[in-house]
């Protein structure tokens, strides 16, 4: 199967020729396939945000090529606007981009720019409200009267309404409380299943990623350090820790136990896995 997005030797340098010149991403090679659910993790400044802003053509690579569905996105005649509709990008704190008088008008902004018919727009608005779990009654409300969590959902719905093949979300759970975070993550997961789309989720939180994603992309110092299924990445948990990433508490606990000489697995990242591992070690006889 052909990758839906492919980066070939992609590099981006900010402020070329100034004293502030900085390589943000360095020679990235990457293939993203349809219907994958990818988590992107890395420390601040590792190049995550720069990378995802290339994937929908907001940033132009300094060198290298980005392919969408096999086509060079910066070749002559390629429509970047179409790329933005196909690769939807939800920025960090997206609620700060809301501007319309009503929720439905705001969500309709993207579809309108796509030139869809009024009927189709209506359909998209209703559908994406359902995807983010907002009641139909908020349609005519002003987005500025909603709570923080609801505003976030409206903003995400605004991108979902464009029906992108690939949905990218930059820290969609930042600042939300545990319940808000879980709800949004679940909605995104459901959306992907129903739409059969590709989802890329950027997060500082390894627990979030491990809960919903199937693959993890680890960025370090402007490069891709790892790109593998979740369990394979956690098998290298000692490296993740050494990189200063925020690994789950149980992962750190099991790494310490291993160091103390206990024969425990170190690719643990949920309490459930931890419990199973302990029970197995104890012979499982105590049930």
């Amino acid at each position, binding site marked *: 199967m052909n990758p839906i997005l492919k980066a070939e030797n992609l590099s981006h340098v900010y402020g070329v020729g100034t004293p502030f010149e900085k390589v943000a991403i360095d020679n990235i090679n990457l293939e993203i396939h349809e219907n994958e659910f990818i988590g992107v993790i890395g420390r601040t400044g590792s190049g995550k945000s720069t990378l995802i802003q290339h994937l929908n053509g907001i940033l132009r690579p300094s060198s290298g090529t980005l392919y969408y569905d096999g086509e060079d996105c910066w070749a002559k005649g390629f429509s970047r606007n179409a790329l933005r509709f196909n690769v939807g990008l939800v920025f960090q704190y997206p609620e700060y981009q809301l501007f319309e008088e009503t929720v439905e008008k705001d969500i309709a902004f993207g579809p309108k720019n796509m030139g869809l018919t009024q009927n189709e727009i209506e359909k998209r608005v209703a559908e994406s409200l359902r995807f983010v779990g907002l009641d139909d009654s908020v349609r005519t409300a002003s987005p500025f009267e909603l709570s923080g969590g609801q505003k976030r959902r409206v903003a995400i719905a605004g991108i979902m309404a464009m029906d992108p093949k690939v949905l990218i979300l930059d820290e969609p759970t930042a600042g939300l409380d*545990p*319940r*808000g975070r879980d709800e949004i993550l679940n909605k995104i997961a459901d959306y992907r299943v129903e739409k059969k789309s590709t989802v890329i989720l950027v997060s500082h939180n390894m627990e979030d990623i491990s809960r919903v994603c199937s693959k993890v992309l680890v960025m370090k110092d402007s490069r891709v350090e790892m790109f593998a299924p979740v369990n394979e990445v956690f098998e290298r948990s000692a490296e993740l820790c050494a990189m200063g990433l925020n690994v*789950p*508490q149980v992962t750190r*606990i099991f790494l310490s136990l291993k160091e103390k000489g206990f024969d425990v697995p170190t690719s643990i990242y949920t*309490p459930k896995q931890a419990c199973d591992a*302990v029970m197995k070690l104890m012979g499982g006889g105590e049930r």
Partner: protein
Amino acid sequence: MSAIITAENITFRYSEGKDIIKNLSLEIEEGDFVAILGHNGSGKSTFAKHLNAILTPSEGKVTVAGLDTSDDNNLAQIRRTVGMVFQNPDNQIIATVVEEDVAFALENLGVEQNEMIRRVDEALETVGMLKFKKHSTTQLSGGQKQRIAIAGVIAMNPRIIVLDEPTAMLDPQGREDVIKTVKKLNEQGVTVVLITHYMDEAAQAKRVVVIDEGEILIDGTPHYVFQNAGLLTSVGLDVPQSTSLMFLLRRYGVKVPLAVLTEDECISVLSDILTRKNAT
């Protein structure tokens, strides 16, 4: 020890709205480190704003170091006694140079120049930002900005510092640095009130007060509070993974204590049961 903050049966509502805080009473001891935990919209931030008279109760009374917050004559004294740090680091930094921002409160208070220079340096040293003294505030990371905001507050030598979700907008590194700084302040004798929805931060406090729907749901040491995992999840909060693990092990009949919060505690419990197992 004596209470430095007392809230007596306070209720708060915006003019016509519903009650955001409902008949809440709370005493905080001098030198304590209290985490106020609650989900977004629980009323925890509204409560925090009562502690230095940004808001005053619709009913009831808040006293800070013996000063009634509803009395306007006390305002200046209350602001010196209670330092506030807010969520968005960008919206509380006033000056473009680090040291000038830290000095802002002292300039307002009319502190004499030599004394001011000394206190600015001291505050920057405490938050570990002394070497950024002459830097521009706009080029700092979120965590660094937040530590500058803390320095700007502690330069006033307040007896209490209230932090209203200071880490909500920070990356993991920034969060860790801020919490370390907060703990250090408490060790130096400052009473700390930390408003948060991160349970791992609350777990590091000496006392945790969980607020839900404007009322106190549960109040006690972190070990006591987090044992009530079911109650916490029912109001949209989390417990540390260590605590969840203990609950799961209990369910399988393994005899482990439930009051396990930190990594170290969990490691020692697990190595204990695994060693015992190997011995038999």
